[in-house]
């Protein structure tokens, strides 16, 4: 009787350890794929390409739910996530971070956050 009980406990420990192991693995993948650095690069390049293909007079709305969520977690001001200086765009989701990428379209870009809709919108106009 005693022996059977030991075998069961061993099996349970074995299964639990396996599950813990797999959970840690998935947590690592989740952490890596949704990391602030990855999102910063993804959005910086995405927005730069959008601006490159835009024409004066356009207004582009971009859903940034996951980036805003990350910035909230990092306690970074949500209105300062996207900034543009000359033709260099920077996406910043944490205090010690940020990713910059340049765009070649020589237009004026007005960056506006719409935090209720969890998005940013960009107004493209001709450079004065």
């Amino acid at each position: 009787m005693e022996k059977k009980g030991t075998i069961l406990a061993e099996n349970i420990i074995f299964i639990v350890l396996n599950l813990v192991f797999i959970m840690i693995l998935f947590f690592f993948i989740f952490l890596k794929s949704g990391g602030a650095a990855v999102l910063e690069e993804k959005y910086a390049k995405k927005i730069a390409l959008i601006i490159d293909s835009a024409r004066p007079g356009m207004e582009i709305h971009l859903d940034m739910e996951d980036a805003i969520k990350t910035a909230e977690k990092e306690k970074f001001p949500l209105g300062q996530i996207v900034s543009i200086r000359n033709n260099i765009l920077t996406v910043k989701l944490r205090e010690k971070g940020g990713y910059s990428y340049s765009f070649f379209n020589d237009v004026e870009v007005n960056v506006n956050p719409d935090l209720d809709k969890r998005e940013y919108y960009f107004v493209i106009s001709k450079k004065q």
Partner: protein
Amino acid sequence: MKKNRRGAEKIISVYWFAILFIVAGAVVAMVAIFYGKPYDVRELETQILANSVANCLSETGYLREDIIGNSDFQNNFLKECSLNFNTEKEFDNMQYFLRVEILQGSNKVFEVSEGNLNLIASCGVEAGIEEERLAKCSEKEFYSLDSSKNVYLIKILSIVRKTEKNVRV
């Protein structure tokens, strides 16, 4: 006999964990490699650049009238087409190159080159191990008409380098 079986089970579970660690290590390595590699958007950038220039030169299939024989347009090509080739401070050299040729039959009636001419060496290189580190090129050709219905062939070559931002160096 029973004792031996228990011993064998323990050995199997040790092997099982060893396999689990190997699999986990491989997954971690793959994820780290995948997400550690920057997104390469240069090919898209070259295509967008070529399209922007095409839109600048030709509107609804008709060639802009102030292009041919206009040296002002040629000299201020980037400004005329609303292009800015400045990049991040980390790049020492210009990261773009653009060449536009307009041909009427076999005569070249317009030609302009802007940016870093050295990048042209990256185009046409056979695919190889180092290919990723070279600049990306895109060629575009299309026909356009002027107001007198003369046909022009427009050739655009656009090149983007920005290797450090798009490839793990």
